[in-house]
């Protein structure tokens, strides 16, 4: 891998994607080319059905890429095995439209799971990091509270903490503000921006929300599976 590839967090060339087989086979991405530099914050907008979520899941290694070139953090994901995709996913932080926190776990335990997966830190260190990041998202006094007892904004902030606690080089987010009111939505995005800046993390964020466009270094628009 060359130094040019490292400077770019994401390099996409000629990426096509189809859903279905045979007669119902339908193309959703057409010859997408995209390059995102490390540390850049990129927003991806577009009407629903434009293929932006598909693009995000391909970059995130949640879906197997079918053809073209898709290089994320120096790993080629086209033709990757299921295990390679799983390993690639460990490098990313995710923030979903719904918070997707585990109901049986407290806020601190939910955040800790992201560290447990790596299995490299001591118990005390994992607890300390989980606590510290929850404090930095303003939930220092909600460590042992389960998601059911948190507000929507608080839950999404726990999700942000979970995505960033492992200090991933890449953060992927799909409409993270969709379930929130404008005030807490903006708060969550600013939090993401601040923490990502501190960690030098690249952010790719899919959104409809025009109120948060100003946080981006660059805004891309996808329409009918084509970047424009």
């Amino acid at each position: 891998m060359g130094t040019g590839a490292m400077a770019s967090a994401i390099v996409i060339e000629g990426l096509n994607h189809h859903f279905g087989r045979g007669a119902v086979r339908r193309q959703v991405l057409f010859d997408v080319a995209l390059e995102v530099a490390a540390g850049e914050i990129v927003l991806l907008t577009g009407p629903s059905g434009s293929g932006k979520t598909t693009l995000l899941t391909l970059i995130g290694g949640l879906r197997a890429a079918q053809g073209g070139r898709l290089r994320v953090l120096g790993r080629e994901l086209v033709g990757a095995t299921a295990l390679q995709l799983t390993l690639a996913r460990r490098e990313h932080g995710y923030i979903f439209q719904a918070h997707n926190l585990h109901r049986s776990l407290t806020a601190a335990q939910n955040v800790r799971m992201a560290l447990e997966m790596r299995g490299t830190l001591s118990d005390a260190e994992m607890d300390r990091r989980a606590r510290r990041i929850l404090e930095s998202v303003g939930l220092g006094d909600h460590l042992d509270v389960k998601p059911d007892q948190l507000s929507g904004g608080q839950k999404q902030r726990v999700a942000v903490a979970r995505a960033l606690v492992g200090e991933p080089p890449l953060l992927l987010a799909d409409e993270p503000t969709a379930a929130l009111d404008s005030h807490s939505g903006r708060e969550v995005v600013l939090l993401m921006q601040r923490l990502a800046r501190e960690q030098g993390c690249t952010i790719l964020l899919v959104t409809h929300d025009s109120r948060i466009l100003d946080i981006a270094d660059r805004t891309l628009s996808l329409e009918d599976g084509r970047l424009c």
Partner: protein
Amino acid sequence: MRTPLGWLQLRHDRGRFLVAIAGIAFADLLMFMQLGFQAALYDSNTRLDRAFRGDVVLISPKALNLQNLSTFPRRRLLQALDVPGVVDAQGLYIRTVNWRNPQTLRSATVQVLGFDPDADVLRLPEVQAQADRLKLPDTVLFDRGARGRYGEVIARLDRGEPVTSEIERRTIAVGGLFRLGASFGADATLMASDQTFLRMFPRAKAGSISIGLLTLAPGEPVAPVVRALRRHLPDDVQVLSHADYVQFEENYWRVASPVGFIFGLGTAMAFVVGVVIVYQVLSTDVNAHLQEYATFKAMGFRQRWLLLVVVEQALILAALGFIPGVLMPVWLYAVAAKATSLPIAMTLGRATTVFVLTLVMCLASGAIATRRLQAADPAELF
């Protein structure tokens, strides 16, 4: 330490958790009752056999079990004494007969044993101590552990009052009590002298006995003598060591009678009920957490890690369900023992068996439930 996700997940939904534990406890209870009755069956049906005093037992080749022993010539006992190492030979008469229950005055089935009162053929101290009473004509000893309505009879005998009954239109005096206990084959047992026995059953021949008990010289090894006896005696008699004879009786109930099969089937059904209950609980749990599992997959957890969560849950359920599952039968065994006069009690061996079955049950259910984990697709989360 990893976060005990399986445990936290189970504990989160307390209602479902309690239902699961109750279900497993119930399956365990069913298995314990089936296995308990099965063991009681074998135990109670060999209790009298085990009480026989003798190193070698002679029976007819046509014998099926204690209630169907058939007979063989008494002469074989004398012939057995010719074999070196055999120092004593005693014959027993056994019959199953209807007598009149002295309390209800209704007909009831009893097993009558006839033997020489001086010969000390039974390892039952109460019978030995009352051997003199058996020498009185038409006098028998009655089993205190008999099944049926005998409470008043026993109370009267304990007070020393005379009790009489009727067998084959002959008046019989009950001279005393001993404790043996009922079996599946006989509700009650009467001990009689050989003389009384032969008077009770005029058609029984004194020369035809049901069981021969041979005593060997102290320290004499049993197996060579058994082989010598088999060579020496004609084939109208079967020679067994005492242990083999008890095994012979148990085998009848285990294999030839439908009873062993029925309890085995009952245990298998209880096991299946347990699998269904645990599977239901675990698969509902997996379904309820499908989105959360998909999130874990998206974060980079591997399928294997998720399988371990389900296995952890299965093991927790097995262990927690077993606790009430083993305590309830202890109490129910006591109730059943009282109601049936059968020897039913919890044993360490059976508890271990059922615990292993519970683990297998939960792991099997868990294994089936984990197939649903495949459905947790992280691509569906966005």
